[in-house]
């Protein structure tokens, strides 16, 4: 089977090539796989995730999303590709403070060129699916952390992407909210059949995945399937 995501000897250099945030990472992520990335702070997890999500480009090496070689797309092609294929979830939610939930979720659809009525219908539906049907017109500062992260997940799903990448999605949440958010992410994998990549510090989050890789100094130090899944 063709990989959902393939990295070939990816390097990301900083400080004029003196520092390698990623130092030769090769990795295949299967379709519908639930991959966990762990490792110490500074080990290159976010950098890896950004490159997998086509938000960042490697200094060296190749990135394929399905059949498409992302590392040779133009800037605008990359933006279009990211919008259609990838959904991002961040530790700090990154909602637009001046937009209510509905408009935050509709934002990727706006950039997709979808007309307002349809956009908001779709956004409302997504918000309902994450249990926020009653908070369509709340602004981010009128929502709890867990609610904000659910808005962010709804936004990541707006263009029905194949791949969801989440960078410490529960890092800023209390355990109850974290549980709720994890259930939703897990459902994306189990029910929606999405390819999911989650960066985390926490073992109980990692336990939900099918496969776990450990990062150390910009390299993969361990790669293994969990519980024989």
């Amino acid at each position: 089977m063709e990989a959902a995501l393939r990295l070939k000897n990816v390097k990301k250099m900083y400080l004029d090539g003196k520092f390698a945030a990623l130092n030769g990472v090769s990795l295949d992520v299967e379709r519908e796989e639930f991959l966990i990335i762990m490792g110490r702070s500074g080990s290159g997890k976010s950098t890896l995730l950004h490159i997998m999500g086509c938000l960042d480009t490697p200094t060296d090496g190749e990135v394929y999303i399905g059949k498409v070689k992302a590392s040779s797309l133009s800037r605008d092609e990359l933006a279009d590709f990211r919008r259609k294929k990838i959904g991002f979830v961040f530790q700090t939610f990154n909602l637009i403070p001046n937009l209510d939930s509905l408009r935050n979720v509709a934002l990727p659809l706006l950039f997709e060129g979808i007309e307002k009525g349809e956009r908001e219908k779709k956004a409302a539906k997504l918000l309902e699916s994450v249990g926020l049907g009653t908070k369509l017109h709340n602004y981010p500062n009128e929502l709890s952390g867990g609610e904000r992260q659910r808005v962010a997940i709804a936004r990541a799903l707006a263009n029905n992407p194949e791949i969801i990448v989440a960078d410490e999605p529960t890092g800023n949440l209390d355990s109850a909210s974290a549980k709720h958010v994890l259930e939703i992410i897990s459902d994306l994998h189990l029910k929606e059949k999405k390819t999911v990549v989650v960066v985390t510090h926490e073992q109980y989050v990692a336990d939900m995945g099918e496969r776990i890789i450990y990062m150390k100094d910009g390299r993969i130090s361990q790669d293994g399937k969990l519980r024989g899944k």
Partner: protein
Amino acid sequence: MIADLAEYSVMNLRHRSMRSWLTIIGIVIGVFSIVVMISIAQGLDKYIRDQLSFLSDDIITVNAGSVSASTGGGLVAAARDLTESDLNALKKLPGIETGGGALAGRAKMNYRNQNISIYVDAADPVLFTEMFTWELEDGRWMRENERGAVVLGYSVAHDVFIHEVQVGQRVNIGNKSFTVVGVAKKGTALTSSMDSLVFMTKEDGREVIPEFADNTAVTEIDLKVVSGANISEVQSEVTDEMLRRHHVTEDEKDFTVMSSAYVAEQVGNITGALSLFLGGIAAISLLVGSIGIANTMLMSIMERTREIGTMKAVGARNGDIMDIFLIESGIIGIVGGVIGLVLSIVVSWGMNQFGVPSSISAEVMAGALAFSFVVGVVSGYVPARNAAELNAVEALRYE
């Protein structure tokens, strides 16, 4: 898409409404001062033109004497008068439809035993009836070759004599008896000097003004150009003819040829320069306003760095981000422009109430709006481009 992005821009402006309004005020002041300054210059232009409207734009005037550099710009004493034969020759030129001569000078006027020295303007009636549209409040102008008929200036009829003079009454001028056939309307600011004149035919003038008694001199020749002719071409033909007739070169010219089109052009030059000067001074305040926009946009973009990273993460193209910020600064510009324009219309109206001529043309209105939008977009351009070119990952890491 643009409309959707605009909605997003408006929400951002509203959420920073205090700062947005302060920035807008900068543009309001700029647009307001430019429009008011230009409106004053245009008002002045319109005022002067209204005052000059008695001059039809197809008249060429020849006067004796000439403005020359050798006298430091002063009028050279008329070395030689214009004559009836100059008039007749000029009237025959191809570009000329009709024309007439005028002579002027002082004479004694007597009415009901009151003696006053008045100024007589004696001219071919065609000048009054066809070429200069001076209106009468009563009666009629003299007829061609009519003798013994006068038209009185407004104040000669109403103010100069203890008893008002009316149409049909008889007056004495020089040693000759005249019938008053008309009274002119009160002149405007520029033509009020006509109010104290007495008008009669050239033939009568030669009888009552001593200097013109025994000769064929005239002080002024007015010519009407055939319709459709190029007035400045005809003007130079007239000049050439006069040079030939007076046997002088361009440098020795002893006459002056003018046209109302030329006068209007001069007025336009002066008020145009005034517009430019006043508008230029006011433009400085718009420049300050536009720096305000650039500053506000730069601040706003810095504060929203993470937001920009997020938009890129959810698939915004660089162009989308550029558009969002350009629309934002464009809105600041155009809202400032609209408010500034409304304010200047009110102030211009107020100035007119107090007698300061001021006029805002549709072109200036449209120009002010377009200009303020352009100022907004231009001053937002560099900040917007900076925003669009932010590195997404770095923007997301920005604290």
